[in-house]
């Protein structure tokens, strides 16, 4: 078992994480290598905060070149 898996397991047992559906979902998606799910979740959170994630990524890529 890798270090990250151990850390994740410890996190999963924390009561504040157990009571947090978002955190639970993130950990599960990470464990299942569900990158699309993680991306969708990030996009949803950004939308709720009034941020267009795609525009941000495009800007980031421009500056990164």
């Amino acid at each position, binding site marked *: 078992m890798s270090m990250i898996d151990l850390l994740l397991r410890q996190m999963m047992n924390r009561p504040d994480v157990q009571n947090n*559906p*978002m955190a639970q979902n993130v950990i599960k998606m990470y464990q299942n290598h569900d990158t699309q799910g993680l991306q969708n979740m990030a996009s949803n959170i950004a939308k*709720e905060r009034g941020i267009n994630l795609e525009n941000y990524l495009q800007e980031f890529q421009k500056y990164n070149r």
Partner: protein
Amino acid sequence: MPMPYYQPSPMQNTFMPYQSCSYQQPSQQYQYTPPVQVQTPNLNGRTVNNFNEITANDVPMNGGIAIFPKADLSEIEVRQWNANGTISTRSFKPTLIESGTNTQQSENNADLGQIEGLWQGIIDRLDNIEKLITPKTRKAEEKAQ
């Protein structure tokens, strides 16, 4: 043989800060006691004039809910982050409840109505039984005479 007489040398009275001291003060061990955190159940949210004022930052990301009553109490919204990163909203609108005594009284009236119905049923049955018994008893009395 003369006893050795202890004579303090003049140097002994002087303070020697670098001399190693054999006596050590017992070190005071302070045991750290973490402060007891009393978790008070606090409600997240605030009163708003318009629900458009609410931002995503007003909703806690720890899985809890945030309650946003309108200032005029015409509506209450409860918001919570979903597992997929969206915010779900539930709206509550008030229903005017008349004073508590009136509702209790109406409940009592309903109970009384039920009891009266039951009574009436029992009395009807008793009347039927009486009707069945009375002619027979009269006949029996007549026979006895």
